[in-house]
């Protein structure tokens, strides 16, 4: 599945996105975040406090319980600060 990172999540992980193979137990945003946190020390640091991170599935805001599939584009980022 396609993962994208923005703002300080992108900076902490050191890349704007990556293609990952979804393990079977990863079925929603919450389990996906816990899985991503295991990929590297930088991922672990970025996802250390999941409460500070927001997500979108296929360009719509999503919450921890929302389901993800292999074909989804999932993005992680801090709370938005535009305007």
């Amino acid at each position, binding site marked *: 599945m396609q993962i994208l990172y923005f*703002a300080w999540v992108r900076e902490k992980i050191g890349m704007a996105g990556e293609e990952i193979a979804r393990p079977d137990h990863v079925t929603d945003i919450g389990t996906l975040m816990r899985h991503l946190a295991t990929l590297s020390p930088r991922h672990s640091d970025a996802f250390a406090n999941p409460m500070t991170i927001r997500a979108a599935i296929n*360009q719509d805001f999503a919450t921890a319980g929302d389901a993800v599939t292999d074909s989804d*584009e999932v993005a992680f980022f*801090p*709370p*938005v*600060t*535009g*305007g």
Partner: protein
Amino acid sequence: MARIAVQEAPFDIAAETAALTEGRTDIGALASFTGLCRADDGLAAMVLEHYPAMTERALAKIAAEAEARWPLTGCTIIHRVGRLVPGAPIVLVLTASSHRSAALEACAFLMDWLKTKAPFWKREEFTTGHARWVEARHEDSAAAQRW
């Protein structure tokens, strides 16, 4: 149908206003909000990052919500991205309606929702060389929830 734009270039309020009102005689009220970059605490520049595939879609949804709640004859949202220096305009919201309360309320609503529901992130660069990501403000969430 709202006009939505996400761009690096500055916007032209007079041209955007004319586009909403030209040739019409049913508009009694036009409200606008322009957000500008302030030079607080030695700020040298603000860098606006966004989620390109999502941004215009998120803005269009916010505009559609305003159009569902108020009888607008038109609505424009333009948000800049990239590097902006103090004094530069960042965002423009325009609302047109036959009556003033609809235009004014929709304009305030659009700004409140845009601050909390559109995928933009601000990074502040200071004259000292220090930089930091702007943190979301509790007041902005509270303002968005009042609608």
